[in-house]
C-alpha cells in the first residue's frame, strides 16, 4: 500500500487546518451557508435532507486494517455507528455534526486519509479495480498510476473549478471491473510489443441524465507522457466545456457536440505543447518509488490444490454456497480473492456497522496482509487470502453477518441512498432494493438465475448506475407519486452498454413483480450457459416487453 512521506503528510495536515478555519468562519456567522457551500463541497461535506453528509476518500478503493479500524471508530464517535460504502469506493457518513468535522478530519489524517476532492467540480477521487494486484492477466497494478494521478490532481490550481465534476478510472486487465467506459476519462493499461507500459484513453463516458459510453481518443500514451496528456485533456475541457447549463456541462456533452475526432485533435494539439514544455514528464524514479509500495505481498509458495478446503466444502454446504459466490481465482497458486457482501437480504446495500468494519479489519490483519478493498459494487474484498484459511475467514465473517453468499447474484444490487437520505431524489431506492432481495432470497433460485446486476437510482442523476445495470431501475416522480422506469441490457464492463427502456414505468406496488416477470421470461428462453445479459443481447427487448405489458 502507498504510505505518505513528509510531503503527503504535510499537505493533508495543512488541508485540515484550512478547513478548520473555514468551518470556524461558518459557525461564527462570518460566512453564510451560501458562501460556505463551495468551500465545504471541496471537502466532501454535503447538506442532505436531515443533516450534513461527509464523504471520505478511499483512494482507488484500498484500505489498511488500521485505516478501516479508524473509520469504524469515527463512525462510532461522530455518527450512528455505521457508514455507507459508495459506488465510487468511498465511505459516507450520514449524520456528522459540522462542528465535529475538523476533529474528524484530524483523526483521518492520522491514518493518512482525507476527504479532499470527494465532491465539487474538480477531479474526484480516482477509482480502480478492487482485484488490483491479485487478478490474473494484469498488465500492471492499476493503483500505481492511480496514485500518480491522485497526487497530480490534488489541489490542481487550474482544474479546481471545472464546468462539472470529473471522474477518472483505471483498469489493468482486459476484463474491466472499474467501469472505465462510463467515466469522464477511462484509462486502460496496455503493454506494447517492446514490453513498454502505455495507456489507452477513453473520454466522455458517463451516466446521469444523458448516459454515454466513452470514446477512445488515445491508443497508446507512453507512461512518461500520461500526466501531460491528462493535463491537455482537462485544459480542453476546462476552456470549452459548457458552463451555461448544469446538465450539459460534463465532458461527455462536449465530446458528443464536437465529435470524438475533433476532441482527439484538440487534445493532441494541446498535448504537443504541454509535452514540449517538459515540466510534466513523469520521471522513472518517481514511478519506481510509487511502484515499490504496491509490490506483491510476501506470498508463500503453495500448491494450488488445497485438500483441507475441498474437505470443508464437502462437509459444510453453507460454506460451499459462500465459496461459490464469494471466492474468485487468484493469480498466485494457493491463494484466493474473497468478496465480502454488504448486501444482506432486506438491508440497505453498501452499509456496514462499525463493529462489522472492525471484524473485517481483524480478519484482514490475520489472513489478508492487513489489506481491504472497496468494490464499486458497494462490497468489500480481501484480495490476498490463502485458500487453506478460507474456512476460518468465512466463520469470522459469518459470525458478523458478513457472509451473505450472493456476490454477483441478483440480490447483490447497487442502489443509491434515494429519497430516504438525498435531497435530489424523486423516489426511494433502498426500499425497492430491499424488497427485490426479499423476493429472490432463495439461494438455489439465485444460483439458477446466475450473474445478474440490478442497479437502482432514485433520480435521473443516476448515482445507482441504473443505465448500466443488466436490469436498471430509475425512480421518477409523477405528480407526487413514485414510479419506476425499467431498462434492460446495460453493462459497465469492457462490453459497456446503456440499457434500453422497456416501456412505461411501473408503480411502487408493481415494480418487484415486473422484475420477477423479467427474470422468469429470461429463465424460460435462455440457452445453456447464458447469463441474463447474454440472453438479452441475443433476443432483444421484445420478449420481455410482451410479458410485462401483456396484461395491460
Amino acid at each position, binding site marked *: 500500500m502507498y504510505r505518505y512521506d513528509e510531503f503527503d503528510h504535510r499537505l493533508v495536515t495543512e*488541508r485540515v487546518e484550512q478547513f478548520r478555519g*473555514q468551518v470556524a468562519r461558518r459557525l461564527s456567522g462570518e460566512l453564510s451557508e451560501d458562501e460556505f457551500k*463551495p468551500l465545504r463541497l471541496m471537502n466532501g461535506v454535503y447538506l442532505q435532507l436531515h443533516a450534513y453528509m461527509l464523504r471520505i476518500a478511499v483512494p482507488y478503493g484500498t484500505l489498511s486494517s488500521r485505516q478501516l479500524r479508524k473509520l469504524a471508530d469515527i463512525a462510532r464517535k461522530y455518527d450512528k455507528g455505521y457508514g455507507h460504502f459508495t459506488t465510487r469506493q468511498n465511505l459516507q457518513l450520514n449524520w456528522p455534526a459540522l462542528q465535529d468535522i475538523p476533529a474528524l478530519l484530524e483523526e483521518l489524517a492520522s491514518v493518512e486519509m482525507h476527504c479532499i476532492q470527494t465532491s465539487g467540480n474538480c477531479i474526484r477521487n480516482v477509482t480502480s479495480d478492487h482485484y488490483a494486484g491479485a487478478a490474473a492477466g494484469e498488465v500492471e497494478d492499476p493503483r500505481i498510476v492511480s496514485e500518480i494521478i491522485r*497526487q*497530480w490532481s490534488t*489541489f490542481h490550481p*487550474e482544474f479546481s473549478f471545472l464546468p462539472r465534476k470529473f471522474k477518472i478510472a483505471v483498469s489493468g486487465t482486459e476484463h474491466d471491473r472499474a467501469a472505465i467506459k462510463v467515466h469522464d476519462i477511462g484509462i486502460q493499461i496496455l503493454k506494447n510489443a517492446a514490453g513498454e507500459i502505455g495507456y489507452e484513453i477513453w473520454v466522455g463516458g458517463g451516466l446521469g441524465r444523458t448516459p454515454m459510453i466513452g470514446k477512445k481518443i488515445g491508443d497508446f500514451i507512453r507512461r512518461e507522457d500520461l500526466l501531460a496528456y491528462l493535463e491537455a485533456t482537462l*485544459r480542453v475541457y476546462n476552456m470549452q466545456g459548457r458552463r451555461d447549463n448544469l446538465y450539459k456541462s460534463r465532458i461527455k456533452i462536449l465530446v458528443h457536440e464536437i465529435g470524438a475526432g475533433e476532441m482527439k485533435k484538440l487534445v493532441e494539439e494541446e498535448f504537443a505543447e504541454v509535452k514540449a514544455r517538459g*515540466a510534466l514528464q513523469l520521471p522513472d524514479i518517481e514511478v519506481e518509488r510509487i511502484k515499490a509500495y504496491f509490490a506483491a505481498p510476501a506470498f508463500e509458495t503453495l500448491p494450488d490444490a488445497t485438500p483441507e478446503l475441498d474437505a470443508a466444502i464437502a462437509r459444510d454446504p453453507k460454506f460451499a454456497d459462500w465459496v461459490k459466490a464469494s471466492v474468485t481465482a487468484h493469480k498466485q497458486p494457493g491463494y484466493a480473492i474473497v468478496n465480502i457482501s454488504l448486501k444482506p437480504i432486506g438491508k440497505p446495500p453498501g452499509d456496514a456497522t462499525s463493529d462489522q468494519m472492525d471484524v473485517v479489519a481483524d480478519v484482514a490483519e490475520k489472513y489478508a496482509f492487513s489489506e481491504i478493498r472497496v468494490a464499486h459494487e458497494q462490497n468489500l474484498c480481501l484480495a490476498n487470502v490463502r485458500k487453506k484459511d478460507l474456512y476460518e475467514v468465512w466463520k469470522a465473517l459469518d459470525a458478523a453477518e458478513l457472509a451473505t453468499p450472493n456476490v454477483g447474484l441478483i440480490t447483490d444490487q447497487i442502489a443509491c441512498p434515494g429519497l430516504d437520505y438525498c435531497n435530489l431524489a424523486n423516489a426511494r431506492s433502498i426500499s425497492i432494493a430491499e424488497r427485490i432481495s426479499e423476493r429472490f432470497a432463495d439461494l438455489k433460485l439465485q444460483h439458477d438465475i446466475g450473474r445478474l446486476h440490478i442497479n437502482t437510482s432514485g433520480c435521473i442523476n443516476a448515482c445507482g448506475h441504473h443505465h448500466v445495470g443488466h436490469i436498471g431501475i430509475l425512480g421518477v416522480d409523477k405528480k407526487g407519486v413514485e414510479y419506476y422506469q425499467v431498462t434492460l441490457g446495460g453493462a459497465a464492463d469492457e462490453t459497456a452498454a446503456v440499457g434500453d427502456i422497456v416501456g412505461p414505468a411501473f408503480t411502487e406496488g408493481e415494480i418487484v413483480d415486473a422484475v420477477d416477470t423479467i427474470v422468469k421470461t429470461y429463465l424460460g428462453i435462455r440457452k445453456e450457459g447464458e447469463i441474463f445479459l447474454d440472453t438479452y443481447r441475443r433476443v432483444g427487448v421484445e420478449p420481455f416487453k410482451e410479458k410485462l405489458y401483456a396484461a395491460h
Partner: protein
Amino acid sequence: MQLIKNGKFVADEWTHVADDEPLPEGPVIVSYQRWLKEQNVLLARETPIGVQLKSGEEPKLIADHLDRLAVVALEFPAYRNGRAYSYARLLRERYDYKGEVRAVGAVLRDQFYFLVRCGFDALEVRDNITPEIFAESIGTFTHPYQPSTDGAEPVMSLRQRLAAGATVRKNELADR
C-alpha cells in the same frame, strides 16, 4: 475594490472603461471588442493599454497583440467559472506574456492560492480582504504536487532531489 499586485496592496492606476464610455486620461482597460474597433485611437494616445477578456474569449484571440498590451484582465463571471485559470496559464506559458495578468470579477479569498499558481500577478479583491487574509490564503500549502506557472518546485521534483542526496536545506523546504 482593492488591487493586490505581486502580493502587495497598491493603488490602482488603471481605469476600467465600458464600451459606451468616453476614454479618460491615463491607462485604461477596455473590452476585447473595443480594442478591435478602436485599436488605432487607443495606440495613438500613447498611454498603456489593457484588454479584458470575457469567459469564452480565449487568449489566442490576442496572441498577436500582446506586445502592445500592458495588462490582460481575465474576467471571472462567477467563482465557479474557472476558464480563466487556463487562460492565464496559456498567456504565460504558451504566449510568454510578461505584462500584468489581472483577475477581475468574482475573485474570492479561497481562490487566491490557485490564481497566483496559474500566473495571475494582479488581483482585484473585495474591500474586506486584508494583507493577513491574503497571506493566509496563498500560504495554505507549503509544497504543491504539480508544476504550474508560478515555478514552485513540485513535490515530485523535491523527492528526486532528496533521493539524489542533494542538500535540500530544511528551511528551503519550509520556506519555498
